[in-house]
């Protein structure tokens, strides 16, 4: 809505919008700031804004207390692993639904979505017991599979909405030229769908990174990602605001930056294509 407005009106809008935006982002900005304070100054009353003794000691302390990088790598492996596994299963499924739709395709998509609505706590105990039986508790592979399963409906849906925009004639032409089905998907469809696949990957990495139910209840140390890392700060331990802030900053920074670049994909993925 690029309508011509007076400069003074634009100035008022700008001031208002910046005020609201800073207010919303304030807890994050404050956390970032606090992470550089010495502990006593982090709880100073009245609060210190910028005139404190800037330090990176909190980051060093957090790293020494509990090895941040162990958790970080687990987060990376779980996010990438579950997304990759999800793609391998979802691309063929989305292909068949987008290009060879049947009478049941819509019902099937709806049903897939409905699995997403199963409350985690309702199946916590069975999943936990199954994990113990299969020796999957606190393993990366177990978590990769669970995260893949809870996000698979979203992956299939997103890919489906992207694939539908690719004209089927192109695939047909490839087939006329004698390409096998596997080649058709791998060499014709996939390159054309790269932007859509990239969006799907981005959104799923964010969702997997921030998943904080299964990753917390199914891990202890070996497979524990950053959600578990930060939960270790639940109980107060003397002066710890600055360390909590440093740990929080380290846990959220990678995905926050990634999220800034994926606003459009977020809308499309989380609304299952209903809002573009």
């Amino acid at each position, binding site marked *: 809505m690029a309508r011509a407005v007076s400069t003074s009106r634009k100035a008022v809008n700008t001031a208002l919008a910046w005020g609201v935006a800073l207010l919303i982002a304030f807890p994050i900005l404050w956390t970032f700031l606090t992470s550089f304070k010495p502990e006593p100054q982090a709880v100073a009353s*009245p609060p210190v804004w910028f005139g404190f003794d800037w330090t990176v000691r909190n980051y060093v302390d957090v790293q020494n207390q509990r090895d941040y990088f162990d958790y970080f790598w687990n987060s990376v492996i779980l996010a990438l692993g579950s997304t990759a596994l999800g793609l391998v299963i979802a691309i*063929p499924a989305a292909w068949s639904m987008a290009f060879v739709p049947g009478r049941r395709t*819509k019902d099937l998509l709806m049903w897939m979505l409905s699995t997403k609505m199963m409350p985690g706590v309702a199946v916590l105990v069975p999943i936990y017991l199954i994990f113990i039986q299969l020796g999957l508790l606190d393993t990366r592979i177990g978590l990769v599979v669970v995260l893949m*399963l809870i996000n698979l409906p979203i992956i299939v849906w997103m890919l489906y909405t992207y694939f539908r925009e690719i004209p089927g004639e192109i695939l047909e032409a490839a087939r006329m030229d004698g390409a096998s089905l596997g080649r058709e998907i791998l060499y014709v469809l996939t390159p054309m769908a790269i932007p859509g696949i990239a969006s799907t990957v981005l959104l799923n990495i964010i969702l997997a990174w921030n998943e904080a139910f299964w990753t917390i209840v199914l891990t202890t140390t070996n497979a524990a990602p950053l959600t578990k890392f930060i939960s270790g700060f639940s109980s107060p331990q003397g002066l710890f605001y600055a360390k909590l802030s440093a740990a929080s900053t380290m846990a959220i920074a990678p*995905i926050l930056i990634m999220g800034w670049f994926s606003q459009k994909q977020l809308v499309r993925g989380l609304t299952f294509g209903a809002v573009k």
Partner: protein
Amino acid sequence: MSTQASRSAARLMLSPAVLILLVWMIVPLVLTLWFSFQRYNLLTPDRSGFIGFANYAEFVTSPAFWLAILNTLLLVLGVLVITVVGGILIALLIDQPLWGQGIVRILVISPFFIMPPVAALIWKNMFFNPSNGLFAEAAKAIGMRPFDFLGQAPLASIILIVAWQWLPFATLILLTALQSLDSERLEAAEMDGANAWNRFRFIMVPHLARAITVVVLIQTIFLLGILVEILVTTNGGPGNQSTTLTYLVYQEAILSSDVGAAAAGGVVAVILANIVAVFLMRAIGNNLDS
């Protein structure tokens, strides 16, 4: 292009996704249903067997149950009202011409990317803490007594945290919908003498209706499952003041080790989620055709 050969190939490629989702849904659900009719407490493993609906009776008649249902409704409704109303207002604001729109958008959507335990811990310690949180400092600065948010108003405080997490989602989706609105229609209405309120009421609101429906239903699904935010801040207390249905089930399973009662609660939660899901399916299903 659907020849017989491609049809069977399509079915073949579809089956892995369908099969694993089927297993993922059916197996735990069947087990949950099974447990819900069993006497099964991890603390007393020697006493087991079929007990009919006793677990359900116990779960539903426990003093926390109705409060938990009420709290769940309040949490969902409270967050929905704040995020939808706030989302519309903020979307309208940042859709206006202004300087630094890109940065404003980034700031506004940032809370959505914060993992739940971080959000809960930041709010609990650095804002709500009655002795040295920022809200307490603000109260002291204007000569008021600090308010113990999580102690005195636990549910409202949790609603505030969760609303903060979801406000960006609502804003972003409503903003996207707003930007797809044809500006010529607004200009035409303006020239016909429609004032700002009427333009909002008769052009924007109908245009946003679909986006609002989607926001409400998707958020509801996620909000029904809220657990970590409660676990980290209040543990459902004081008393059961901030216990939701999800938290109650978790409590039975983990703290009381009562698998049977937790399973019965799980079944109740599944039924509730499914009632919501039916509406969501209908709304999204209709949009699929258009």
